[in-house]
């Protein structure tokens, strides 16, 4: 008999997957197989079970912007490895490998365009790039996206998927929490709407800064959202965590999300909200 045993069979340790390769894709949790094309055509949501696979920034931009037309902003910013950090391998090498493997510069991209005819700035994180961790580059891009939204008075959507602040940039990563939050304070004063969408997973420093500061906090179904990771909490309290702990549904129940939106409905739900905020349906007042 083993010393440690899981109390329930429904406790699943999930590690977020990249968009899987191969023609047939196995759905975690349910175990069913789905054809890759079917997933691609359904924004990486399993049509049967509704399971949400991780989707990258390009996927979200294509999903949200009308005719998949958008302008990418603030590209060409990469990490300067300010600490000359080395663990088992140099951070500089890790960055190069990641850039080559993913074709991305870092873990966030920003684009502007129209979504259902409403102007929208979208800053989207990429979990594939060092776990979507936030270092100086992510902080700078998010900060510039906020400035752009404020200066042009365009609603801002930030899509988070992140393990938290990036260790390899030490305290500089930590200060990105302060930086992005300070910028959001200015955006808030300017009265420009900010929508935060938390996808699987959104944890650590990203949750403890911009992800939780939306005028509207949204979550994708089943997304893990929290400050500390479940493993750390389990170690601290010395017991198993309740079923569904730190899921989007759990956060909604505890008052930290406005609503949960399936990815396939994201565009229409955002349009519905923005149309009201933009007073699209108001008739001129009669005297």
């Amino acid at each position, binding site marked *: 008999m083993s010393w440690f045993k899981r109390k329930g069979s429904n406790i699943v340790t999930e590690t977020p997957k990249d968009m899987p390769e191969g023609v047939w894709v196995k759905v975690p949790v349910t175990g069913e197989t789905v054809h890759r094309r079917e997933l691609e055509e359904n924004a990486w949501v399993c049509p049967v079970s509704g399971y949400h696979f991780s989707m990258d920034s390009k996927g979200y931009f294509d999903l949200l912007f009308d005719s998949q037309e958008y302008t990418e902003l603030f590209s060409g910013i990469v990490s300067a490895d300010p600490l000359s950090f080395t663990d088992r391998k140099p951070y500089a090498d890790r960055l190069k490998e990641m850039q080559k493997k993913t074709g991305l510069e870092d873990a966030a991209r920003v684009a502007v365009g129209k979504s259902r005819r409403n102007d929208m700035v979208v800053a989207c994180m990429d979990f594939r790039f060092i776990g979507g961790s936030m270092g100086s580059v992510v902080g*700078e891009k998010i900060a510039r996206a906020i400035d752009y939204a404020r200066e042009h008075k365009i609603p801002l959507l930030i899509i988070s998927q992140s393990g938290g602040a990036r260790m390899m940039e030490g305290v500089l990563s930590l200060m990105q*929490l302060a930086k992005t939050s300070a910028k959001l304070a200015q955006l808030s004063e300017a009265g420009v709407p900010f929508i935060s969408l938390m996808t699987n997973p959104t944890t650590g420093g990203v949750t403890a800064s911009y992800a939780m*500061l939306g005028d509207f906090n949204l979550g994708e179904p089943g997304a893990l959202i929290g400050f500390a990771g479940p493993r750390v909490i389990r170690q601290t309290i010395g017991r198993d*965590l309740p079923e569904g702990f730190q899921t989007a549904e759990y956060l909604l129940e505890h008052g930290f999300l406005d609503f949960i939106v399936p990815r396939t409905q994201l565009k229409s739900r955002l349009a519905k909200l923005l149309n009201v905020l933009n007073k699209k349906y108001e008739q001129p007042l009669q005297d």
Partner: protein
Amino acid sequence: MNYLDFEKPIADLEKKIEELNAIRIPENDVLRPEIERLQQRVHELRVSIFSNLTPWQRVQLARHPERPYTLDYIYKICEHFSELHGDRKMSDDKAVVGGFATIDGISVMIIGQQKGRDTKSRQYRNFGMSNPEGYRKALRLMKLAEKFDIPVITLLDTPGAFPGLEAEERGQAEAIAENLREMAVLKVPIVTVVIGEGASGGALGIGMGNEVYMMENTWYSVISPESCSSILWKTWEYKEQAAEALKLTAADLMNLKIIDGIIPEPVGGAHRDYDGAAAALKKQLLESLRRLKKMSAQELVDQRIDKYSNMGVVDETGA
């Protein structure tokens, strides 16, 4: 006295002196100059050991069980301290203390993370790890200070925000995020000092000062060296390397332009001389307060937002 492993040579000598002192030595005995010589040697040894500390040794000093904590400093440097309690929503978090006081007659709101000294008080203070209520209490006190146009001082000393089930349930991340956004636009001066451990978002959650200082033997980073080691090296064994790599000492943060200055500690560390450490802290606080009190509310907010907006190092020449 509690000695750290690298202080062993000092401990050995001090033990010898103690033994000599225990025997009754006549006025003109040959042992008298010997004791003086040993005491001189202890001083030299201490100066030499403490001028060559490794980052990991600084981390150990920052966690020294006899180190002065927030309330120790408050009682040393403040007059008329009225401690205030509670977040008005849920409870009173004992890991954060704060209240109105004066420093050399200047009215201040002083807030800090508080650790305990013995088993019982450590538990009472939850080892300096606050729940969301601690951050909300701190924010309530800061807003109160803003209302009465009184500057805010925050002292950081935490191994991290508490990673507990209820803490998550009640919005640990939201509480910290809210503080960051609200501190950014607070209309009164904020002076922040790391007096012990500055562990990640848990510390920063009350730490967005117009000016930020670190006591000499403290650390401030995105993660503790142990946790960094366990994640990147997959074992706890590399904490010393992680401490080096993270660049977490006061001198490192000066180089990275994250802090505005280092507050020198007495030789041997703050825990060897509370009065000396408190005097150095007080001197810096007064200097900062006098400077910041001359700025208008708008200037303070602008300066703070600019300061944090400029943090981060990127390469814009393209990938």
